[in-house]
């Protein structure tokens, strides 16, 4: 309560606004073996994630959000996630998820552009938005058939 008020420009960094406006890998991959759906029931955010594997390497990844169902944080996070994990091995992607989550929980910054989300830490109500795509990725890689929701996730 007494900490200095967080600044909006730390939350909505340019890279986040850019990826919100022009999301990368915003596509359906029909042939993808691994798919997952993520829901944030509190705000109605929904994501469909498609992961193409070549052995244990993520050869392609895409996501879709039904019209208007992604806020800037969830959409930019999904977009930056796809960039970060494309071409990576499954284990490396899971490590990135852990690093991302650790950052949002108040730990060290995640590597590369993912650090843009460090500002979300100061906005606890938005942490689930940032994590949504990563939970979906985790579910897709685990081959989980059930849609993941941010409500079953241990984000706090």
């Amino acid at each position, binding site marked *: 309560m007494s900490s200095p*008020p967080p600044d909006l420009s730390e939350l*909505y960094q340019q890279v986040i606004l850019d990826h919100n406006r022009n999301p990368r890998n915003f596509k359906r991959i029909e042939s993808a073996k691994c798919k997952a759906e993520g829901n944030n029931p*509190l705000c109605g955010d929904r994501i469909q994630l498609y992961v193409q594997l070549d052995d244990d390497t993520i050869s392609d990844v895409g996501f879709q959000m039904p019209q*208007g169902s992604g806020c800037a944080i969830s959409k930019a996070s999904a977009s930056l996630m796809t960039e970060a994990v494309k071409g990576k091995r499954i284990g490396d992607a899971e490590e990135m998820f852990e690093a991302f989550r650790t950052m949002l929980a108040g730990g060290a910054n995640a590597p590369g552009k993912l650090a843009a989300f460090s500002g979300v830490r100061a906005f606890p109500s938005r942490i689930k938005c940032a994590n949504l795509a990563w939970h979906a990725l985790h579910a897709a890689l685990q081959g989980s058939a059930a849609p993941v929701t941010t409500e079953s996730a241990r984000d706090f």
Partner: protein
Amino acid sequence: MLDTARIRPDFPLLARQENGQRLVYLDNAATSQKPRKVIEAIVHYYTFHNANVHRGAYALAVEATDAYEAARTAVARFVNAWAREGVVFTRGTTESINLVAASWGRTNVRRGDTVVVTAMDHHSNIVPWQILCQEKGATLRMVEITGDGRIDLADFGRALEAKPKLVAFPYVSNSLGTVNPAAQLIKLAHSAGAVTVVDGAQSSPHLQVDVQELDCDFYALSGHKMLAPMGSGALIAKPALLEAMPPYHGGGEMIERVWDDRSSWNKIPHKFEGGTPNVEAAVGLGAAIAYLEQLGMERVAAHEQELARIAVDRLSQIDGVTVYGPPDHRAGVVPFTYGDIHPHDLATILDKDGVCIRAGHHCTQPLMRRLGVAATARASFYIYNDVDDIDALVTAVRKAGELFGVPA
């Protein structure tokens, strides 16, 4: 308009600063803030009168019972109930509707019957009926809404052709602010032979409600949206219906006699109040009603409608803003979207300026699908809001547009 300069100091929380700025609380459709009179009534109850109700033979217990029953009288007067026995205390609108579904519904709805709700109903007036219909093999019929956010009366008429057992609808939509023609809908439903359930969560805080004039069968309200504590609420019903209904929760207080293998039931409303009730909530609700009655519900309604009119007007002047809901017959609820800015981002940005609004589906997902949006931002007003609050809202919305590069 109400004299907000005199009302605001009655609400201690409104003195709070948010990010160094005055708190502008515009999420009243979610819950209202509480005046000192209500907070003091709860403290006073626990300080001087606390005991279990309807049980003790000692003076203190009688005082607690009197305080609890005085609140029932207040609720009965506030909505002009048929009788104070027709006021059942519940945790709120959700429990009131679930009570009707579980008790009246289970007894009267059978396989092949129809239950009617509307596409603008809150989940709490949809899901209990879904559960009932699935259990009974009955059909749930959802009445469509018009493009400008009203109940489609033609479709309502078609739905009644199935001779539904029960028709449920909101007096005021929490998502659109629409004030529905409740008396007319009830009359139509009755002529089709249906029992009517009115979700009064958004009407009770904001309108002069007269359930006898409406002639509904059941009316549900929540205290927390009308200055009272969370966990306070009531089901108001025609006493003859309650008499004929089986109990909802078994337990203490709701029985007359308990044999080894069966029981007989207490008189209404106690038959539906098993277990120790939330006496502090009832006492707080009584104090909230006293506060509202002092202002006068007609003045409350006029104040909020004027604020909504100004807010709709001011927001509509911003390029890219879409306001939802009807142009007239609107309570103090203003849902809107702004360009392609997601309502959640809007709410975060507004919060920085101390402006609290709701963003999301407002527990009305069927309605959101029909509006073709995943979510809206919603500003909702109450007795302590004024034009300064609208100024703060509009200024913060414009700021969001600049941050996200929505053309001015």
